[in-house]
């Protein structure tokens, strides 16, 4: 028991980093995903082709590789871009998750009855009013279960940041485990991940219930 309290501060510090990557990635990639989905669906060919390529690239390569590339690869390419570890991790995660969210949102957008847009049009709502007041809330209801899957994935994916030397939850556990030659820290890491996913699952259920008041 004494040992648990001894390693807890370092594990909690790691949890803090895990949660900050998680939170900021969602904060940026959800709205960006919606924008990319809208761009992917425009009649403007160059934009939709570019976005299609981007989504293919991001979904077609491992996130681990993308992390390494953003942190170590960009400077080597002579771009002059040297990102701090934390920023590099965020950039890679946001780029990756935006691509997944874009595809989820595209599915949601395509499921909306065109009559909704026509209704908005005859009521003279402009493009952004239609998107924000009519389309987005209806798309949210459709995509929440799929988004929920990605959110849960993201908590665990965030452990990949160890590869560029960031001290997240898993790394904190790993350090303690090899130092003290025991599996206890890793068991605790598992428990913390489970607690986090349980928390977010509950939260997602609440959001689903909120959207469940209309059909």
């Amino acid at each position: 028991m004494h040992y648990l309290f001894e390693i807890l501060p370092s594990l909690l510090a790691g949890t803090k980093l895990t949660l900050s990557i998680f939170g900021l990635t969602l904060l940026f990639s959800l709205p960006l995903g919606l924008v990319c989905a809208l761009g992917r669906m425009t009649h403007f060919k160059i934009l939709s082709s570019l976005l299609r390529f981007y989504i293919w690239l991001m979904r077609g390569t491992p996130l681990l590789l993308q992390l390494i590339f953003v942190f170590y690869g960009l400077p080597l390419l002579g771009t002059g871009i040297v990102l701090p570890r934390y920023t590099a991790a965020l950039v890679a995660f946001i780029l990756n998750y935006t691509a997944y969210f874009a595809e989820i949102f595209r599915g949601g957008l395509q499921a909306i009855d065109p009559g909704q847009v026509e209704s908005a049009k005859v009521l003279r709502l402009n493009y952004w009013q239609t998107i924000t007041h009519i389309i987005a809330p209806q798309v949210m209801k459709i995509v929440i279960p799929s988004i929920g899957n990605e959110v849960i994935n993201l908590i665990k994916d965030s452990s990949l940041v160890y590869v560029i030397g960031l001290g997240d939850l898993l790394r904190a556990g790993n350090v303690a485990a090899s130092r003290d030659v025991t599996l206890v820290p890793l068991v605790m890491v598992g428990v913390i991940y489970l607690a986090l996913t349980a928390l977010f699952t509950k939260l997602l259920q609440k959001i689903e219930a909120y959207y469940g008041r209309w059909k």
Partner: protein
Amino acid sequence: MLELKKITKSFAGKKILNQVDLKVKDGSIMCIVGQSGGGKTTLLRCISGLEHIDSGEILLDGKHFDPTDLTPADTIMGVVFQDYNLFPHLTVLQNITLAPQLVLKKDQTTAEIQAKDLLQKLALTGKEKLYPWQLSGGQKQRVAIARALAMHPKILCYDEPTSALDPGLRDTVKEIILKLKAQKMTQIIVTHDLDFANEIADDMLKVKPLNQKGSEA
């Protein structure tokens, strides 16, 4: 007065409307009737700005009028769709107040007072907080009418207003339409229900499906 001159519209090379002329007098009820595939709905969609016309001209009070140009703030066309197209995520009250608030920049209180007045006139008092899925077909239609009226249109268009209603409700719609006429509202009604059209129309336009060459079959 709304006037259509030689309106032509094709989809993928197939002519749907060929040189259609139409005059709708202020405060009158114009019924567009005819069998399916005759272009009734297409004509209504052109009038309400949901489709661009290929050629011809639309005049409002003698002046050129482009219904697809959505910039003017005063709404000219209101539309009640066949399946109503209410916003499922908004309550009855929100469905009606959304556009007046966003487009006409009315404050919430003013928009709600006006909406409640419309709901009362359409026998929907008490339904303010319900969502569209909690309403019957007839109630949904009346909400759609209220939503269109809240934008103060000069002309109100209906696409097949009786197609989804049982006979009792058909008379309710008829009453609403005639009541609006008494208030000098100009109304254009697309319907395949000839009896209904005969009961309410001041003028009637019969459309027929076109053959390949674009003349009436």
